[in-house]
């Protein structure tokens, strides 16, 4: 297509955006909202995935022993555990060590006296499994050993987290879909308004033999621009919000593992931009087919 035509089509596309300023703004905003939701869902899911992974790799079993056991019995239990399958390591923390560590962390020297001479800490054995999947099996076996008071591991936390993420994924999909639909409707409405307001012009264009694509392109450009501007707004919003959130988390909740990877963020932004363009083009192609029958 000739340069003149391209310029004409571009100008027409932009002029009609201006003509329906409020409708265009509303369309841009809905596109932006749906893309913000899309972008933050992706970021959120990526983060929960990392958190889940971190949890997984940290799964340990804490075994608390009966207070009345003597040192020999404790060592015996420790050896029995060592011989179970799937054990990576077994570490004993005696009640004296536990008290001492706690005392250290409280920076006091008279904790035992303050507690009335009774050490409230039990002996503790920490087990690390070779595979997180084995944790539950090991735990139930250890529980049966006599002299074991209680066994604690991340019972269900991981499962709950994963279930929650799954659930959230679907909610995210539904909400993004709803907003995308709204955006498509709005873009389509604004194109319909433009087709109507340009009815006479289009009629004349057909009369003098303008090609169908020539008549259609300005509307498609219009949709594309709406999608692109909406995507830009969304990228800026998500970008600022996430970097603020990252800073907040890193400075106050440093133990939460976050995804701050540049490449990952660039990819999310790229997805958002492509999503915006796709939404805009799709909406205009559909509505042009519907409202500009040939």
């Amino acid at each position, binding site marked *: *297509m000739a340069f*003149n035509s391209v310029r004409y089509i571009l100008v027409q596309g932009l002029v009609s955006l201006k003509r329906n300023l409020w409708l265009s703004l509303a369309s841009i905003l809905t596109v932006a909202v749906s893309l913000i939701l899309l972008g933050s869902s992706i970021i959120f899911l990526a983060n929960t995935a990392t958190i889940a992974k971190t949890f997984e790799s940290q799964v340990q079993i804490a075994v608390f022993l009966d207070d009345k056991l003597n040192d020999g019995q404790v060592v015996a239990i420790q050896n029995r555990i060592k011989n179970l399958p799937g054990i990576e390591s077994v570490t004993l923390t005696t009640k004296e060590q536990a008290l001492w560590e706690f005392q250290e962390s409280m920076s006091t020297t008279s904790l035992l006296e303050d507690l009335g001479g009774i050490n409230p800490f039990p002996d503790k054995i920490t087990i690390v499994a070779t595979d997180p999947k084995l944790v539950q099996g090991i735990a139930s076996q250890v529980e049966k050993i006599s002299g074991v008071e209680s066994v604690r591991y991340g019972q269900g936390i991981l499962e709950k987290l994963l279930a929650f993420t799954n659930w959230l994924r679907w909610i995210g999909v539904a909400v993004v879909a709803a907003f995308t639909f709204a955006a498509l409707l709005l873009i389509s409405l604004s194109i319909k308004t433009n087709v109507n307001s340009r009815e*006479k012009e289009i009629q004349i264009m*057909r*009369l*003098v*033999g*303008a090609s169908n694509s020539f*008549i259609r392109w300005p509307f498609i450009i219009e949709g594309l621009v709406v999608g692109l501007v909406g995507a830009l707004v969304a990228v800026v919003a998500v970008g600022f919000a996430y970097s603020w959130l990252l800073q907040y988390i890193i400075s106050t909740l440093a133990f939460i593992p976050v995804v701050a990877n540049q490449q990952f963020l660039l990819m999310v932004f790229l997805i958002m931009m492509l999503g915006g363009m796709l939404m805009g083009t799709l909406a205009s192609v559909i509505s042009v087919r519907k409202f500009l029958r040939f």
Partner: protein
Amino acid sequence: MIKLKNVSKIYPNGARALMGVNLRIAKGEFVFLVGPSGAGKSTLIKLLYREEIATRGQVLINNINLVRLKNSQIPALRRNMGVIFQDFKLLPNKTVFENVAFALQVIGKNKKEIRESTLSMLDLVGLSSKVKAFPSELSGGEQQRVCVARALVNRPGLLIADEPTGNLDVDTAWGIVDLLDKINKYGTTVVMATHALQIVEQMNKRVVRVEGGRIIEDKAGEEVRIGI
């Protein structure tokens, strides 16, 4: 140039607008299409620029059957013909120049071509002094001249007019008809539907009379008669 073979047009609502119409128009002819209201004149004209499709028969322009024409081929067809109407169909927010240039702009001509063709065509229709005026600043006759210029700016071989003088007083109407006659003398075939019987009579051109969807009379023009 134009051949209608046994053409019938029945609208979706069942209205029989044309029935078994046969018509041949040669290159360079000037033909008036007359008949009472509802006779089928506009329908016949719409078949020629492929706004409507014949229900039966063939509509041939330069041996191309418009009944079979694909939608994507309509632009090419229309670039080879000009159409004007009773209501002028000018864009109110564009100047005279821009209205005429528009026809070239939307078919992708370059700026220089557009400027030259537009100015020479506005000169031909006698509007050189009004290029910057807006349609609302023009008389009805002047507006129709702009339409003629727009219809012809791409130098088509055929001009189709559906009651082009319907909104004009007698003197102004004559001005338009004289203009069409001049264009015809330069070689453009003209087909004009009209109710202006006085003009039709005085022009002594070929007259095709339509009534109830049929051609009931086809009277050759004076020049042709002299030729015989």
